[in-house]
């Protein structure tokens, strides 16, 4: 897929003047070697967090949802905050793999595999919360529209939670298929490098008999483009539908038409930040400096600042609409957001999502990978708080002042949040061990530049 339009003056996407064999070798190295001490440390820490989360959720299911800090006024807090946060994180993967693919943004080849994996794991984390936040999670299957023996009992198609269920399950399915299809050539490469044995048998099975023939490649390219086309609307739809959970309600602060674009932009924003966080770590710990270069970081930083601008605009629009609507409840909610008991959360959100990313306007900042790492963490924190602010500050003081209440998380809720990070990182670290973190087949197409093609085999 060499691109004749590529300008010769453009920096190569992959540094180090790699041959294709070197690419394969570099990327497959972690799969061949024994895990490093650093990997073990990270894995055990993640596993410990996951264990904590499993304990917290088991306790909550055994004892009751009352072990969370919710009350009669604030019916959702950490649970749905975490859900929306993880769904948001899960956005960057599809964006990078599908939309950037269709737009021929070839730098994406270095990060798309990991971003898609991140998407899958984030959606897995997200998918947990709608289930465990139920009062009776053992009845979660009632959300499925399946024929049953309970008379004409059916689900409520007017409920945004049902739409959520469809949106997320579709998104997860498409993302998984997309990721897996993209993985096929690489699995075949790994298979071919593996000696006979159990592992090879599994890889043979997983690579679906990939033989690298012209026909196989042709089919592969067609399927990949089609899937990219299918996945593209999902990037927009999933978070749009998630935002309807709020936008279709009557609660001031939730009931806003700006929510779908606002949520989608926020999701891309947080997803990009999470990709940056993960890639910067992977780059330095897995020796991928030649593949994930300063240029990649630079491009992603630009996306971050762009989406930060959209998010900031949405924040401002909310306040403007409150003022312009002359709706006293709406006005109160936003005054309460900025000045009320949860003002600290609001200003954390503004600081992390609007102010801090402004530093990325400077090339020097974008080139300083340590600083970018810190900034990306700040954005992750800020985006978590954005969902917290939307959910909790809108609920805790709505229409009738007699029912206004406070909210504070319990240790169980904090442990559940930590557990979701544990699940995410456990999955991600296993992914780094068992799957090539960079799409080898794709990246080989951008090795070198047309002016100075990559070395031959």
């Amino acid at each position, binding site marked *: 897929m060499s691109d004749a339009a590529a300008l010769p003056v453009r920096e190569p996407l992959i540094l180090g003047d790699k041959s294709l064999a070197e690419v394969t070798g570099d990327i497959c190295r972690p799969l061949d070697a024994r895990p490093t001490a650093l990997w073990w440390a990270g894995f055990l820490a993640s596993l410990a967090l996951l264990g904590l989360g499993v304990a917290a959720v088991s*306790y909550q299911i055994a*004892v*009751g*949802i*009352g*072990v969370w*800090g*919710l*009350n*009669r*006024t604030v*019916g*959702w807090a950490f649970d749905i905050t975490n859900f929306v946060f993880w769904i948001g994180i899960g956005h960057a993967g599809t964006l990078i793999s599908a939309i950037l693919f269709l737009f021929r943004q070839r730098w994406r080849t270095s990060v798309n595999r990991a971003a898609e994996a991140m998407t899958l794991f984030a959606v897995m984390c997200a998918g947990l919360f*709608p289930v465990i*936040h*139920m*009062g*009776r*999670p053992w*009845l*979660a299957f*009632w*959300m499925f529209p399946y024929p049953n023996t309970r008379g004409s*009992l*059916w*689900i*409520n198609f*007017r*409920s*945004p*939670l*049902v739409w959520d*269920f469809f949106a997320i399950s579709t998104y997860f399915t498409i993302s998984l298929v997309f990721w897996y299809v993209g993985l096929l050539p690489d699995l075949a490469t790994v298979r071919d490098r593996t000696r006979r044995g159990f592992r090879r048998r599994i890889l043979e099975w997983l690579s679906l008999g990939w033989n690298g023939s012209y026909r196989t490649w042709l089919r592969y390219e067609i399927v990949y483009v089609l899937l990219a086309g299918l996945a593209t609307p999902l990037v927009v739809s999933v978070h749009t539908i998630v935002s309807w*959970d709020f936008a*279709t*309600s*009557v*609660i001031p602060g939730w009931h806003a038409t700006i929510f779908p674009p606002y949520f989608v932009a926020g999701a891309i924003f947080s997803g990009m930040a999470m990709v940056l966080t993960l890639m910067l770590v992977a780059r330095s710990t897995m020796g991928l400096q030649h593949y994930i270069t300063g240029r990649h970081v630079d491009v992603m930083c630009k996306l971050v600042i762009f989406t930060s601008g959209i998010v900031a605009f949405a924040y401002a629009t909310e306040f403007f609409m409150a003022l312009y609507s002359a709706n*006293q*409840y709406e*006005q*109160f909610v936003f*005054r*309460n957001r900025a*000045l*009320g008991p949860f003002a600290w959360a609001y200003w954390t959100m503004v600081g992390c999502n609007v102010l801090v990313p402004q530093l990325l306007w400077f090339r020097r900042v974008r080139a300083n990978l340590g600083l970018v790492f810190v900034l990306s963490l700040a954005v992750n924190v800020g985006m978590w708080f954005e969902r917290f602010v939307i959910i909790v500050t809108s*609920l805790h*003081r*709505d*229409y*009738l*002042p*007699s*029912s*206004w*209440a*406070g909210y504070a998380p*319990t*240790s*169980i809720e904090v442990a559940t949040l930590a557990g979701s990070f544990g699940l995410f990182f456990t999955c991600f670290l296993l992914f780094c061990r068992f799957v090539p973190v960079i799409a080898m087949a794709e990246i080989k197409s951008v090795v070198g530049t047309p002016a100075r093609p990559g070395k031959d085999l």
Partner: protein
Amino acid sequence: MSRRYWKSIEERDGGEDWLPADRDEFPEPLAVLPDAPGTLGRRGFLKAAGFGLAGTLAAGCQRGPVSKAIPFLNQPEEVMPGRATWYATTCGACSAACGLLVKNRDGRPIKLEGNPQHPLSRGGLCAVGQASLLGLYDRWRHRGPLKRGQPASWADVDADIVSALAAIRHRGGALRLLTGTIVSPTLSATIGRFMATFPNARHVVYDAISSSAILDAHERTHGRRALPRYHFGQAAVIAGVDADFLGTWISPVEFTRGYRDGRSLEGNPPRCSYHAQFESGLTITGTKADWRTRIAPGEEGPVLTQLAARVARRAGLAWPAGDVGMPPVPGAPLDDLAGRLWAARGASLVVSGCQDVAVQVICNFVNHLLGNYGRTIDINRPSYQRGGCDAALGELAAELAAGAVDGLLVAAANPAYDLPADLDFATLARRVDLLVSFAGSPDETAALAGYVCPDHHYLEAWSDAEPAAGCASITQPVLAPIGGTRAIVESLARWMDDARPAYELVRAHWESALFPRRIPVEPFETFWDTAVHDGAVELQVAPRESAASGTSAPLPDPVAAGAAPPEGALSLVLYPSVGQLDGRHAHNPWLQELPDPITKVTWDNCASLSPDAAASLGVREGDVVRIETGGPSPAAAALELPVYIQPGQHDRAVAIPLGYGRASTERFTRAGPHWLESQPGVGPNGLVGINAAPLIVFEGGTLRYGGRAVRIAPTGRRIELATTQRHHSIIEPRQVSSAGSRPIVREMPVSALSAQQPPPGATREGRGLWPDDHPYSGRRWGLIIDLNACTGCSACVVACQVENNIPVVGRDEVRRQREMHWLRIDRYFTDADESVDVVHQPMLCQHCANAPCETVCPVLATVHSADGLNQQVYNRCVGTRYCANNCPYKVRRFNWFTYARADAVENLVLNPDVTVRTRGVMEKCSLCAQRLLEARISARARGEPARDTDVRTACEQSCPAGAIVLGDLNDPASRVAALAKDPRYFQVLEDLNVRPGVGYLAVVRNRDADPGKAGHV
């Protein structure tokens, strides 16, 4: 064209009888031996066994139904499973003795309701009365007599007591019987008989919440120590001075009903009494007042003197002789009040709860000047609801201190708990040789007593009541005693060698003493049956000659300077809270969890301070302060209580509710769910709240609840109070709270009401863009709540809790804002001239036609019925809580834990018609769907449509003010349809267009029209 293939010639030629082999493998029948008729063959056996096994397994896969439903071997008369039986009886929860109808299901009472035929309560019942049902099923009640703390037999205890009494009788020793007010004529007569058998015996009556000064004052002015009956319904102008007559004072249910009658807003001009209230703390009576003025504790005397002087001037009487100085309240409105009182001579009423006899004498003087005696105040047909004599109590204490009492019997009172530290009853009582308590459940006095002869719960006992002269009612048992308790009247009779049971004693007394007062004359049997059936009968009252009208009484002395503390000092106001009264129901979790109508605090008492006082002390809500009484008095006492900041309270008052810190509340340590972060359900002292009764002052022959000077110092500790309405919602930073008014409650002056035209009906329910989801072609149930009638007394809250099996969640859960009440009473303050105005708004599911909760439930667990109910389907609910989030009224309640308890006795109170909810499901007001259904079924059985007069919700039935009306909004003849046309009608948050089925009628204040005041809060 397909080709046909064949296998054989036969097939190709295909004769009639040729059967292809692939169609039937065995053309001729198989040689299977037919089963012998009546036997089960091998196949049949296997089929049956397989089916049986599969069926058994399948049936075992689900939780089986209750397997202990055993039918009656001999069905008791009157007990029909599933059918309720109603009995009329008398409430024994306090001495007001309201009439009751008890709902029995399967032989056990499950709900108390006011008896509409009772002349005093007229169908209302207060929160305490509603909740007293749970006392019946209290596991901690005495199960039988105790002898020195150990269970004993009645024979044993009787023998001991009889011999001890005989010894006292023989040597002429002093026997004293100390009781609370006794409204039972039979018990009074029996006590009289019993005491008469002793040479030196006296019956001392006191009330923990005493009104002794009123009786003493009438003894002075009218020559008769009696508590008059007050007729609030006939009063056009009411002045209350420190008398919470709608909340806790004497007979609040009766007074509430009367008060509401006087403010019914019927006719043109609308009937609306004028009510002025002078008080230090904020009471629910004060919240209803048209003019409420804060006075310092101890200023009741000067205020009444000033009022009396102004009324006397109008009456042409030069009283008082000297100068009375400046009034402690603004003079002009006081003049206005005096003018209104004078203009309404004979139809006005001045009441005071002050415990200073001199002040009460002035109160009587004012009423006399106004000609109220014989009209709004009836001294000839007095009330017996407070009969205590504090002076006699003082004498008893002196006797006890002198060691002159040989035997002390204590009944219907808890003096070791509720008497002031001055009297030191607990120490003195230990010196008495024979101390017998009749307490039905463990209390502080019973703990001291050598013998405890537990009385029945009133629902187990035969008794009677005459709460007001001429109004007698029967108390009949509605189930056999649960434990081995015995009625007091039986115990006393037994000790006089009279072995008759209570039933016979009551009946005999009625035949001999009450029946002769009955006119018209009828056979006693008929009279008795009527009394038992109806619950209450009217009797004649012998006219009394002595009732001096007061004209001959000398002019009273003015009380110019009260015991008010100096400027800047703080003084106490000890008051009975609406839920706890004097603490006699402290064991009742329903009442402990009932939010106080004013403070909204549950499970605790607190020291209320005005915002200014709190600011000057530098304390915030929840700060624990040490309250010390001043002076070198030996009875100086100290309490440590959390602060509650109460707008509308006088700046020099510290208001503390009584009735807390009762022994036996330690049982609530583990009330509520237990989990990792749960907190105990009691305070640091191991009890619910702290007893403030030791701070009561015994002075001038009466128990004084107010006016004691105290010092307050912060301790530096904090307690988070379990309030159901976050108090800081009203002390918000200005920039947050200055949002515009919310259309939640409406107020209007009475003048605006008569001027206002009903709004045209078409504008309210305008057509929307979309067709109606719910056209309500038949009935639409709706509820209309008259905020003007509502006093906030919270009877409906408890009634709802009893009717709908609403769990008690405990202090920690309330603190986490997880109370479960389906019906709550929202309380909103507005600034008034020198006080605050308060609106009480019962808030429950609004049964919206465009219900936001219904659209968001993913599993259709909340749906709309064709007749307008928003229904919650518990067993379909998965607990996403989305509905609660989307409810603008926040009336939905979630089962965060398993709140139901496995208490076999207590659970007998559960209403079998209402599901006990499990953990993880949402619940909310069902508009008493079970009652609507019952009405519909019985109407169908009669073959006629259900009318809204057939059915009343639990809250509606209980309301003493009749503020709640249920009905069919679609029926133009229904009460609700008429109310919905009222100019006061409004819907909360109407602009959301959720089209609620619950509407409200605006509060009306009898004030001059003030455009700034009318409107929204």
